[in-house]
């Protein structure tokens, strides 16, 4: 909790909104799907997956925020780090939250090695505050601090990101959410309000800095610059109304799919949509540079996957263009390959499941600073995913701050084997791993 004394002193009339969000730092994500965004969202506040909101103080009648752009080491998941750029030591930078009608002043300090600027994506503001370097302002020089100041005349899910050398700076992780809450809460009220940004990184296996020159062939597909299973899970109590705000600053459109529920698309970076425009979906494409608000009642208990539906976006780095091993009888040459290449484990002859199995057990030596393409282990074996994937965990008895564990579903039907157990399947998937 970061309740600064200053906030309490300054916050006459803003005490409620000044309450910081729950601590959701997923610094130590386990090999099994990650830590949870654990605290119920205060109405009018969002839970930033693996992140936090930015503190502010009242100065001369404006909420004053301070973003400091710099380079730092970022962890995508345990076993994979890189030198990234962001704000206040994180990528994405802390979420800016404000209320429609607020006057905001955002100080930006540039500790990067090159000039930058900040564009307030989707916010209606005077042209000189739009943050397009060279067009609406000179760039923010190295070591300089600049101020942006404007009044918020809308509410919704927005973004901030550089508009100077965007190719490099965004490829390194410079981005953040800008949430403008309505003066009066939207109805029906959501008890949970989660937010994350979709992004991609070209972090070549074994390297330690993303490559900004890459246009399509990315290695890591992220929710808030984390990959499964290090992405915070969305834990909710059965029957709660849930909002998920998704923004996309990557180079692809992502069809985000939620299992077990049908949600309404209730808004975008154009603001909240009139209810007649809401539409029910289970998959919503969030286009590049767009945001989407999804709302639903979590009425189906269980562990539900929330992921991009492009299968290569729910996995980590993989070679594209390597010879396809599926169907290849490598066994005949196994001894000779073993003698020539003792560290090599030929696999994939029957598909990639075997790979996920070995990776989830940590049986396979891969390159340094590189995650297996498919990872994660659930109660029934390898989950075999990565990238843009996390879980919505719906429990009747969920208590904030307490990890609900895997869904046991003892009273619920579950798919069952009706033939004899396959001889070939030597692994024991019956034990529940945690």
């Amino acid at each position, binding site marked *: 909790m970061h309740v600064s004394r200053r906030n309490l002193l300054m916050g006459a009339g803003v005490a409620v909104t000044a309450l910081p969000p729950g601590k959701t730092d997923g610094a130590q994500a386990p090999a099994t799907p990650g830590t949870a965004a654990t605290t119920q969202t205060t109405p009018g506040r969002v839970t930033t997956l693996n992140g936090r909101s930015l503190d502010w103080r009242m100065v001369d009648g404006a909420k004053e925020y301070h973003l400091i752009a710099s380079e730092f080491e970022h962890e995508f998941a345990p076993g994979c780090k890189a030198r990234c750029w962001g704000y206040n030591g994180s990528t994405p930078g802390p979420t800016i939250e404000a209320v429609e009608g607020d006057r905001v002043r955002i100080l930006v300090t540039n500790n990067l090695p090159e000039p930058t600027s900040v564009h307030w994506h989707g916010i209606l503001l005077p042209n000189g505050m739009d943050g397009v370097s060279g067009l609406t302002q000179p760039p923010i020089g190295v070591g300089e601090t600049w101020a942006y100041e404007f009044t918020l005349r809308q509410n919704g899910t927005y973004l901030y990101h550089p508009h100077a050398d965007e190719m490099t700076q965004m490829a390194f992780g410079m981005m953040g959410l800008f949430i403008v809450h309505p003066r009066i809460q939207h109805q029906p009220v959501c008890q949970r309000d989660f937010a994350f940004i979709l992004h991609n990184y070209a972090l070549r*296996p*074994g390297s330690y800095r993303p490559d900004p020159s890459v246009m399509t062939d990315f290695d890591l597909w992220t929710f808030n610059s984390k990959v499964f299973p290090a992405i915070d899970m969305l834990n909710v109590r059965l029957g709660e109304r849930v909002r998920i705000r998704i923004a996309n600053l990557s180079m692809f459109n992502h069809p985000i799919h939620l299992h077990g529920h049908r949600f309404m698309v209730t808004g975008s970076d154009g603001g909240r949509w009139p209810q007649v425009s809401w539409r029910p979906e289970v998959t919503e494409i969030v286009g590049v540079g767009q945001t989407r608000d999804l709302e639903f009642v979590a009425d189906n208990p269980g562990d539900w996957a929330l992921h991009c539906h492009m299968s290569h976006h729910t996995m980590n*780095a*993989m*070679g594209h263009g*390597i*010879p*396809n*091993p*599926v*169907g*290849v*009888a*490598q066994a*005949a*040459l196994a001894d*000779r*390959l073993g003698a*020539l*290449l003792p*560290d*090599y*484990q*030929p696999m*994939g002859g029957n598909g*990639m499941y075997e*790979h996920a199995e070995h*990776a989830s057990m940590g049986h*396979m*030596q*891969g*390159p*340094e600073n*590189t995650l*297996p*393409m498919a990872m994660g282990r659930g109660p029934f074996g390898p989950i075999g995913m990565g990238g843009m994937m996390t879980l919505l965990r719906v429990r009747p008895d969920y208590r904030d701050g307490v990890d609900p564990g895997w869904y046991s579903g003892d009273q619920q039907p579950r798919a069952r084997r009706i033939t004899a157990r396959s001889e070939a399947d030597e692994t024991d998937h019956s034990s529940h791993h945690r």
Partner: protein
Amino acid sequence: MKFRLLSVITAAATLGVSSGCSTVPVQSSRQQAQALLQRSAGTLAQFPDNAEAAENELRTLLAAPLDATAAIRVAWLRNADAQAACAQLGISTADIFAASRPANPQLGLAWLWPSPHGGDRKLDGTLGFSLDDLIRLPSRRQYGAVELRAAQQQLAAKLYALALDTLDAWLEAAASQQRLSVRRAIAESAQTAAELAEQYRLAGNINAVETALQAAAGTEAALSLSRSERDASRSRSRLRQILGLTATDPALQLPTNLPAAEALTFEAQQLHAEARSQRLDLAAARSEVESVSLRLAATRRFRLLGGSAVSVLGEQEGDSRRTGIGAGIELPLFSQGQSAVARATAELQLAEAHVRQLEVSIDAEVDAQLEQLARAYDEYRQYRERLIPQRESIVARLSEQANFMLTGPFELLLARQQSYSAYEGAVDALQSWWQSRVALARALGAPLPMPVRGN
């Protein structure tokens, strides 16, 4: 004068009697050559007493993997050039021995029958000695001894050179064998890739071109292996030849690895000096200068002597008998021995030129081989400490990548072949180092460098 002549005759007669049954010292001459060789070859240059012992030793040596020491022993026992050089010393020893002996006296007899017209039967006897031969004998013996030493030094030098030639051939054969095993591994890797490509093709996963590329690479590696086999076979038969082995001798076994190189530091100036004191061929050339100058001195001293002789004469005619002495002397009217002196002078110049030429070539060779040795060692170290670990690490890192489906097996197998090629380069550098070591020993006349430890 009369007294002197008599004493000469007596001396000659005594000499003739006393040395009448002495033998030519071929055996001891060879032992002296062997003692010279031992200075650079140590106990390795001790030879069995008889042919049977030599054959037994040979059989033992050829039964085990042949290390460098064994190879030199076999060459010394079997190589026909070595045997010819020993025989040559026998010839030289015999010639020099002969030259150190006085010429045998000449006994002449003549019968004259009475003629039909009268006169008695007559019997003449002459015992003649070559006088200048006797006079020249002491100086001939003096330079004969030096010539004998030179011949022994030449034999030792030849056997030493044979040992170094054998080392060269052994290194080539052992290195070729090692290269062969590397090429075999490369071929195995390339052929595994080709067969793996077949499997990928059968599964329908790669096209005809990709399959053919792997197949062709496999065939090329097999051809390269075949060339290596030819090289290994050629160097082996060259080694057999220098060892003096025939078809009935057993097949050669060679050690699997060349011995490791070591860091050596030399002081070039000191090596030049060492070479001048150690080189057997230089010693032989200097002995040659010494003997030729002794011969020149003798030629000068006796240049007017010519073919002088004394003789004892006896005559019997009827009942009358007479004895007397006679003498003959070459009159230096038309030749005063100038040509003999001129020839001996030129021979001395020739011998001196040979010494100078050897000295120059020794200095140049020492410097050149020092440079070769240092460079080959540096290369060898770079292979061992840099390239091989670098190539191995590429294989290890690529294996990790392949485990994570980031790289395919063909790239990995190619990297494996490149890592094997680095070993081949190391073998080449090691062989160069050893051959420079041998060449340096040859230039120095130094104790034999013995690559006996495997690595």
